[in-house]
């Protein structure tokens, strides 16, 4: 595997992206350090998932660049992009498991598609990946027979099947009970260490994410508000970051959605 050996694995510069008229990113710079766990946090609807799709090259930005290991993701041909993606794993919020395949076949899927290894070896690798997430016993079950937390662990096993350089986690903790949350947190941390991965976690579960990450970004309104170590983020001077961390209902992000007319006029004025 070729590697430029730089400190930064993913370099995002001046990223601009909009859904139709609605701007999502307006000149964002990010550096994802190699071998570390980086958290990207922000209120719902700030396009954190969009960021992962932009890094993975599924969507195209309107401006700016995304470099993965020194290669501009959006200047690649489709086959070059696919080569790059073999070095990225992605864990979707819902898992994205193939419902017509067993857990085992799901994990074996990328190996069968890309590795060209004999079936006996694919079986061993898939079972090792499943053992790493503690689900070797569930190998013969179908995705609808396992819980949401378990599907995410299967999806994680599938994402690391090809030994990628980087894994992107999209809201890995949403809707998890404390036990499976703990399991996932430990897995993300230990896999990052054991496999020498680079991890990007997109989440709004502030405490959980900060406790396992080495570096964190807070994004909102299309801008990076603050970044640094989890400690630095906790002591951030930005009001918006503090509101987000403390979960206060009112602050720079208003409790009231902006209305066209003021409240009294709306009540007393009758229907327009």
């Amino acid at each position: 595997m070729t590697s430029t050996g730089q400190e930064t694995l993913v370099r995002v510069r001046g990223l601009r992206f909009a859904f139709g008229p609605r701007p999502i990113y307006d000149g964002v710079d990010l550096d994802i350090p190699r071998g570390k766990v980086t958290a990207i946090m922000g209120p719902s609807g700030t396009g954190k998932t969009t960021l992962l799709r932009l890094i993975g090259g599924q969507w195209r930005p309107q401006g700016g660049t995304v470099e993965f290991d020194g290669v501009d993701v959006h200047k690649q041909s489709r086959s070059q992009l696919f080569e790059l993606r073999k070095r990225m794993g992605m864990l979707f919020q819902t898992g994205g498991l193939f419902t017509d395949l067993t857990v085992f076949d799901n994990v074996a899927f990328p190996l069968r598609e890309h590795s060209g290894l004999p079936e006996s070896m694919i079986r061993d690798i898939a079972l090792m990946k499943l053992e790493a997430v503690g689900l070797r016993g569930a190998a013969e079950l179908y995705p609808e027979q396992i819980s949401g937390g378990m599907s995410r662990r299967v999806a994680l096993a599938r994402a690391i099947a090809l030994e990628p350089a980087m894994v992107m986690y999209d809201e890995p903790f949403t809707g998890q009970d404390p036990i499976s949350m703990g399991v996932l947190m430990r897995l993300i941390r230990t896999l990052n260490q054991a496999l020498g991965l680079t991890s990007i976690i997109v989440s709004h579960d502030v405490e959980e994410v900060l406790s396992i990450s080495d570096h964190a970004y807070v994004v909102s309104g299309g801008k990076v508000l603050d970044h640094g170590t989890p400690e630095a983020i906790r002591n951030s001077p930005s009001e918006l970051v503090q509101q987000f961390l403390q979960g206060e209902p009112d602050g720079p992000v208003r409790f009231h959605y902006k209305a066209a007319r003021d409240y009294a006029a709306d009540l007393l004025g009758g229907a327009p």
Partner: protein
Amino acid sequence: MKVVGEFLRGVGEATLFLFAILSALPAALLRPRLVVHQLYMIGMLSLIIIAISGSFIGMVLALQGYRTLAQFGAASSLGVVVAFSVVRELGPVVTALLFAGRAGSALAAEIGLMKATDQLSAMEMMAVDPIKRVVAPRFLAGFIAMPLLAAIFAMMAIGVAGGHLIGVILLGLDDGSYWSQIHQSLHPHDIWESMLKSLVFGAAVSWIALYQGYHAAPTSEGVSRATTSTVVVSSLAVLALDFVLTAFMFR
């Protein structure tokens, strides 16, 4: 104006989608196991509905045909009437309509749901092209399955469970003349034209179903809309294409 624009946009998108499928076909041919699996899902599982409908159509044709033919004292030609209408027209068309309802809707719903649950995105992020892995094998299977299903439909309609059952066993026509008249008057080119029709219908229904599923909005409403429009659009397309093809084949 807006409706026309939307329509043209859809047609353009669908055409590009067809080109993408066609260029992925060689890759699908290299993975015969995927195609065989889809042949089972699309073809084999549609077999029962096709066989039963074929028999009923054959029986009804025999009853109706007999009444008319008997007026001219030509009841012994019943086999020819049944065979011609089934092979030339009803076989491919009714099979395609049933195929759209049974297999087309299932394809659209399956692919729409795969999209809605991020399975297609996950595949893309694993550097696997969903057009090659998911769409092309299904298209190819639909293309292969349709003529076979139409042939089975025609055999059921003409044969011992359809026209033959009513004509020979119920109405007492001569068994030998039923078959020999069919044999004499049905030419190979009738059968080739019937096959050509069902190939075209198979490609059209599969294309429409896959397009609707692949471009469905990733919500439950989007999937339901994709399923409905698959059945509606492909039924209309089959009937329109049938007219065009028949007009070309008319001699």
